[in-house]
């Protein structure tokens, strides 16, 4: 168990991070991700409030859909990356990172309520996740990708969304906290392998999904992180827009790239990346890829460094050769039919 964003969470369960990682790529795992915040906002003004606060355009979706979006600082830095569940006509569940929940409540202003403590959140992920979950909650198991909806499980109202953070297919379920242990036991009995924070990090890295505090954070804009699609330029003003528009005009000074190193050694955050022998960038996240059997990393590099280029990572004094690759590092496993 380790402290994480004010929570105490398991790094791994019995079989260890690598086994949990492989289970998610091959079959199905369950994560307890109750540490993610839920900020509820509703009423006739909620839509406009969210549009002015966050970068993506909710006008592209509608009730019953989920959207990935950013909260920016005035300088264009990403204060948090967020999934919005548009639950019904005027009701939204905004899901920030654990440690950023208060910041998001403040940004949304009056009417935004932190309901994190009321519910637990389970992430059911992997190519077999829907098939296994179908035996527990068929309606929720059928929730489409980036769809959101209510369902009833053993008499209690829950929410399901076709979202996740592993690169695999899957569903996330919010359930009243007092019933969460029952659902956990039901999905484990159905065949889900419990997975901890360690596998969550190696899975998201193979999928090249950003982690706030690493690929996103103070001084890092969505454009630098290669997430320009999260920003709507057509919906009107939002916090940070002016600074971001200026960067868009000038071009980014650095860009996030994926690296595969020549050996198994895990690159680590902060290690220098050398281009033609000179330090040119820095690793933001790195680890061992269980699927590739190689060290992999995300790193900020000059935007001229392109896929296919050869660079080197300074791994504790050794300049280890690395190749710039297209991401994700690992493609999703085709989902099994329900």
């Amino acid at each position, binding site marked *: 168990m380790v402290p994480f964003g004010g929570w105490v969470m398991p790094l*791994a369960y019995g079989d*260890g*991070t690598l086994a949990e990682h492989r289970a998610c790529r091959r079959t199905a795992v369950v994560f307890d991700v109750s540490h993610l915040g839920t900020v509820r906002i509703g009423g006739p003004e909620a839509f406009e409030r969210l549009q002015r606060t966050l970068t993506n355009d909710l006008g592209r979706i509608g009730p019953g859909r989920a959207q990935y979006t950013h909260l920016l600082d005035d300088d264009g830095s990403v204060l948090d990356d967020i999934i919005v569940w548009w639950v019904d006509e005027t009701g939204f569940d905004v899901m920030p990172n654990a440690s950023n929940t208060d910041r998001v409540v403040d940004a949304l202003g009056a009417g935004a309520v932190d309901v994190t403590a009321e519910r637990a959140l389970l992430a059911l992920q992997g190519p077999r996740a829907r098939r296994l979950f179908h035996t527990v909650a068929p309606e929720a198991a059928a929730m489409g990708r980036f769809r959101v909806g209510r369902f009833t499980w053993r008499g209690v109202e829950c929410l399901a969304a076709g979202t996740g953070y592993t690169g695999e297919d899957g569903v996330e379920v919010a359930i009243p906290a007092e019933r969460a242990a029952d659902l956990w036991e039901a999905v484990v009995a159905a065949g889900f392998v419990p997975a901890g924070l360690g596998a969550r990090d190696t899975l998201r890295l193979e999928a090249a999904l950003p982690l706030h505090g690493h690929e996103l954070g103070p001084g890092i804009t969505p454009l630098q992180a290669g997430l320009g699609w999260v920003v709507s330029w057509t919906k009107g003003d939002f916090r940070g827009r002016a600074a971001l528009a200026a960067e868009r005009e000038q071009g980014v000074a650095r860009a996030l790239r994926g690296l595969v190193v020549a050996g198994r050694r895990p690159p680590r955050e902060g290690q220098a990346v050398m281009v033609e022998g000179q330090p040119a960038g820095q690793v933001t996240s790195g680890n061992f890829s269980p699927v590739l059997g190689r060290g992999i990393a995300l790193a900020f590099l000059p935007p001229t460094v392109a896929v296919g280029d050869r660079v080197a990572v300074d791994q504790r004094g050794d300049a280890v050769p690395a190749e710039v690759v297209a991401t994700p590092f690992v493609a999703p496993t085709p989902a099994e039919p329900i």
Partner: protein
Amino acid sequence: MNVPDELRYTEDHEWVRVEENKIRLGITDYAQDALGEVVFVEVPEVGSTVALGATVSEVESTKSVSDIYAPVTGTVVEVNAELADAPERLNADPYGEGWICLIEMDDAGQLDRLLDGDAYRAMIAG
């Protein structure tokens, strides 16, 4: 935790097996459990000299990186090349197939500062 009595130990959770004028070096069961799954081991070069207390190897797990320190001054005469493709041997068999290197000692007197099994058990229990 398994702490074989026939081995000697360092306060940095390494084990030492004395083989005539050489020592075989690895990490303890306690160390492998704390580190988590080992995914990379950098072994020293055969023929390199190492000084007491200097870094002789680096072990990386999915969680973190740890330095392995030379428990004696001497010359590396053999390394466990199998670890390049199977670093998980440090987890599966820390006192056997998970050995890291064999060092020829300059001064066997340096062994006196190592812990015996009872002292190491007391340390990890403490």
